[in-house]
């Protein structure tokens, strides 16, 4: 248990010492989301319609950005070997790393999302639903991305492969996330969609760490 806390603590410490990398992810998120009005025109009616989808797509891409390298540094400097030989079961160690990654990359996205929501003219309640859907959905994105990162560990084409492998699997999250906001704005209520997202989150948190650990073993054998 102490080891698990240590993994998390040092992961956060390392992230803190590489602050600029985190700022890059956040910057990417904001820039991608801000490009759409420039390409589509600034009609407020249109922006309100596409707002939630745009923010979600931007979040999808932004989480992928940092995830491709989630295990790469550990693989290169030999830490992964020590992690595999540590007293912590590898799935839990992977979950701790993914959790730390979510805290430092996805939480800032959730916090920045209301500002983007305002840019797109979303109402206060819609912004609330958007943030809730991001809080529930981004952990799933991180888990799936971690799986891609583990599978492509040490491959030359790794950086390009992760999106190809992972994005199709992330479609349900995108649909449920953006769908919840849209359902709310249509007066249908976001509840069912958010419940689905929460169910998806629970299933993925329980299952994916084992897949990630298995992939890590396959890739670093």
């Amino acid at each position, binding site marked *: 248990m*102490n*080891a698990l806390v*240590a*993994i998390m603590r*040092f992961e956060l*410490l*390392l992230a803190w*010492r*590489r602050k600029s990398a985190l700022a890059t992810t956040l910057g990417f998120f904001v820039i991608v989301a801000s490009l759409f009005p420039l390409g589509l025109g600034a009609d407020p009616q249109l922006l309100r319609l596409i707002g939630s989808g745009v923010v979600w797509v931007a979040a999808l891409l932004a989480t992928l950005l940092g995830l491709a390298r989630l295990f790469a*540094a550990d693989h*290169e*400097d*030999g*830490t992964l*070997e*020590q*992690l*595999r*030989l*540590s*007293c*912590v*079961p590898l799935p839990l160690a992977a979950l701790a790393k993914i959790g730390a990654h979510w805290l430092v990359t996805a939480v800032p996205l959730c916090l920045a999302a209301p500002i983007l929501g305002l840019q797109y003219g979303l109402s206060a309640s819609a912004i609330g639903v958007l943030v809730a859907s991001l809080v529930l959905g981004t952990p799933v994105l991180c888990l799936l991305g971690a799986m891609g990162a583990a599978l492509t560990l040490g491959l030359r084409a790794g950086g390009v492969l992760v999106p190809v492998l992972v994005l199709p699997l992330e479609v349900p999250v995108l649909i449920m996330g953006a769908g919840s906001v849209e359902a709310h704005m249509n007066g249908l209520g976001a509840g069912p969609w958010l419940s689905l997202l929460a169910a998806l989150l629970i299933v993925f948190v329980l299952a994916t760490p084992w897949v990630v650990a298995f992939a890590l073993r396959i890739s*670093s*054998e």
Partner: protein
Amino acid sequence: MLTDLLPAPNLLSATGLACRRGERRLFKGVAFSAPAGSLVLVGGRNGSGKTSLLRILVGLSSAVAGSVAWCGRPVATDPLAWAAQLFYLGHASALKDDLDAAENLELACSLAAEPCSRDARLAALARLGVAHRAGLPARLLSQGQRRRVALARLALTHRPLWVLDEPFVGLDAIAMAELGQLIETHLMRSGIVVLTTHQAVDLVVSRRIVVDLDAASLEAPA
């Protein structure tokens, strides 16, 4: 039987280990039995599979055939318990560039569930002559200094089996002597050390086992 009452002494044994890397078969029929206090030297040409053998021993890779046993029990049945018996240092030193030497040591110790005080860590670093660098981020250390920080773990660990991949590479004469002493002490305390090395190592050991992978190689020497 009297032997049943005694605690089982440390014993590392390997039988019929075979390894293939991709399409290349590296070695087969590697077997040895190392009782407590023995130094196992793994030798062979470049690319003969020394690192692969060490990774198979510790359980990072799986062998095509054969098995590894600790105190008579196959280790593959419980990888987590097996990992708790050994200390492994691979080619890479497992240092994080953005952590300083003391923090790196702390991370390594907590991963292995061998917590130690800050003083103990500093003493270990001092033993390998890098105490004055304890506060520097690892990326500012030289290659030899990085290796020393990694090896400082040896002064802190209580694991009976050490598996070291080229531990003497990049060390100066003083550090080599210090490392030799650490290994000798460990062997004297009935530990077992498995290591690969290209250099002639001058160690006083009571029992030395040489595993020559060239003899177990499946390819004609180039």
